[in-house]
């Protein structure tokens, strides 16, 4: 099996997103996007940097950023480590390392303008664009301010205007994109007095860097930082000491940021496609189970009802029979009684006739009635 899991997920991602959004498919594929051909970049030669902070001053002025608290001439700023912030797109830091003989080493830091930027792939309004001029630029007019780009950036570059209530922006170096469009150099590159910064085609810069390393192997370590880190960046660095001692992380890996989430995004169409089918299936099964249960139940009920009906019928018959019998006896009795009464009446009548014949009138009745009325 030559296919790695990541690659497989990457394919799934490409297939999935390709199906849903078409043109952004490349962002989720694991195809190595090398950036625009001929796109420019900047090479920072850390060995040549003298820590004068001219680049910081130039950046501040060309980007019309607010004036700093301490003047750019004040080099005591270098005594503490600084990072980019909402008012500062670039900072120079001083390092003293054992392997460098404790001599001061100055390192400039700013947005690396990744070939496949994490920030751009993370933004859910697509506020970042990697332009063919190499710059990763930000569109303030759509930004929601979720700050996921800041979570995503492996170089911890984007910053936020936390003190603005209504119009906070993400702030980061633009590689002086507006100046590039005018054919000018980025502010920092233009002003650097020691040529520690070189602007040019990224391909050419890589060659220059290799050449310097080859010519002076005692001054440079054999590594170009940014050549492959997370898919490569437009800014490249060479130095005389290991980069991890200069505040640059060497554990970022080679996987470009979009590939890290491609698998998860690729699962979307699978879930959307499979879940409803599966769930409906489960529903059908459970319904069927229910139905069978219900049928069994109703059969049982029907049986029970039928059985009880039979019982009831038998009972009824018995009752009816009994009733019939009772009725019969009742009738018989009634008839007997009637006959008896009739016979009695006849006898009485016969007796009466005999008494009348004897001419003796009855006396008790008329007397007893008034007494009853009184009481």
């Amino acid at each position, binding site marked *: 099996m030559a296919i790695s899991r990541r690659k497989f997920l990457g394919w799934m991602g490409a297939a999935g997103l390709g199906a849903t959004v078409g043109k952004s498919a490349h*962002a989720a594929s694991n195809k190595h996007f090398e950036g625009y051909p001929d796109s420019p970049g900047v090479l920072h030669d850390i060995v040549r940097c003298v820590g004068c902070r001219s680049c910081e001053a130039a950046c501040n002025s060309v980007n019309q950023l607010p004036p700093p608290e301490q003047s750019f001439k004040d080099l005591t700023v270098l005594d503490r480590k600084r990072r980019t912030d909402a008012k500062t797109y670039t900072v120079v830091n001083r390092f003293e390392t054992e392997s460098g003989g404790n001599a001061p080493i100055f390192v400039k830091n700013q947005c690396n303008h990744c070939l496949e930027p994490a920030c751009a792939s993370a933004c*859910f309004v697509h*506020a970042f664009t990697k332009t063919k001029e190499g710059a990763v630029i930000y569109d303030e007019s*759509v930004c929601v301010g979720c700050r996921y780009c800041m979570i995503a950036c*492996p170089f911890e570059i984007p910053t936020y205007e936390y003190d603005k209530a209504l119009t906070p922006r993400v702030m980061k170096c633009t590689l002086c994109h507006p100046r590039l469009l005018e054919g000018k150099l980025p502010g920092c590159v233009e002003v650097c007095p020691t040529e520690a910064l070189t602007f040019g085609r990224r391909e050419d810069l890589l060659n220059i860097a290799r050449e310097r390393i080859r010519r002076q192997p005692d001054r440079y370590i054999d590594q170009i930082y940014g050549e492959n880190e997370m898919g490569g960046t437009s800014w490249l660095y060479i130095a005389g000491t290991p980069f991890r001692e200069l505040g640059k992380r060497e554990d970022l890996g080679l996987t470009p940021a979009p590939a890290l989430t491609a698998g998860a995004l690729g699962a979307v169409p699978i879930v959307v496609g499979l879940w409803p089918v599966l769930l409906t299936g*489960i529903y059908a099964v459970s319904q069927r189970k229910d139905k069978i249960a219900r049928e069994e139940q109703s059969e049982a009920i029907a049986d029970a009802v039928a059985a009880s009906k039979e019982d009831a019928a038998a009972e009824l018959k018995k009752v009816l029979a009994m009733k019939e019998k009772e009725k019969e006896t009742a009738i018989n009795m009634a008839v007997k009684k009637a006959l008896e009464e009739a016979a009695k009446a006849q006898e009485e009548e016969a007796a009466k006739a005999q008494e009348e014949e004897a001419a003796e009138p009855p006396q008790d009745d008329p007397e007893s009635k008034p007494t009853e009325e009184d009481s």
Partner: protein
Amino acid sequence: MSDTKATTGGSLFTPFNMVAGLILLVGGAITVLRFTGGLGAVTNLSDYNPWGLWIGFDLLVGVALAAGGYVTSAACYIFGLKRFHSAVRPAILTGFLGYALVVFALHYDVGRPWRLPYPFIVQPGTTSVLFEVGACVALYLTVLFVEYSTAPLEWLGFKRARNLVVKLTLVLTIFGVVLSTLHQSSLGALYLIAPSKLHPLWYSSYLPVYFFISSIIAGMSMVIFEGTMSHKYFHDKMDEAHLKEADGVVLGFGKAAAFLLFGYFVIKLVGLAVDNNWHHLATGWGLWFLVEMLGFVLLPCYLYAVGTRDKNIKMIRRTSLIAVLGIVLNRLNISLVAFNYHLPSSERYFPHWMEIAISLFIVTIGVLVFRFVVTRMPILYEHPDYKDAH
């Protein structure tokens, strides 16, 4: 708030109401501060720590704990476990409230909240996991609203509309499960893009799976936990069916949660093995990781299992609290504790008291609205007019 009066039958100044009122007051004041002074005025967020408590707790924990809605309705309507029926409505209500509050809380956290619809109406960033989260949460909130709407419709007496919604139950449930699967897991996937910032013990390419599975556990445990609370405070509102089925719900979800917790523990180990992160266990971070894994995954797993075996309702109910706390711990570990683990302690984040106050404020609103609804609408009992409808 008007609802505080009606429910306590008389005095407005119960201790609960006073505390809630105080929180609301403080929250209101901080709200003003937040929208006049910016995030910087009320939070400890920084350029290194762009996400704080409002994402870690309000979003991540909030969404996980609101999973009871889809879990319960799926159990009842899709898996056909009818004995969960009386638990569906309260779970849907908490789900709906939970998601509504998550979205509400996001308005505090993002820089320009009025632009929250931009990703969908202005310019979609489809390569972003956050886009998926946003889209699914927005859609799911709508689904939950429709599912929940049967209760107010019955309350208001709109029979026809209510019956229409009931007819849609199955479709809504399936839709809810699909959307929940997607966004529960993609909340974990949010962190996939930052392997260099999240400690390796918590970072894994399985993060989406972890988040999804643990959301089911969270949902079940929340249903049990919240049922316990409701029994305590709204017992008089429950009908016979609810009371009769309550123990069955506890046992059923307790058992399922025990299995899931065990499975979750196993896939966490698989994640460790795949990335070969065992050596990290011997560090301080490893100790903290073990606290989470043993104390808040294995322990509730065991207690749930014993509880269901012995049919010990009380034990299961107590365990649900441990499980819920475990979810809280896990989400906070990933978003705050183990995130930026490489930074010196001076650059690490700890929430500002006002961030905590706003989170409390939002939880309080949730509790008050819940109380308002269950004391009025047919949530814990069935509406007498619709009893035969199931």
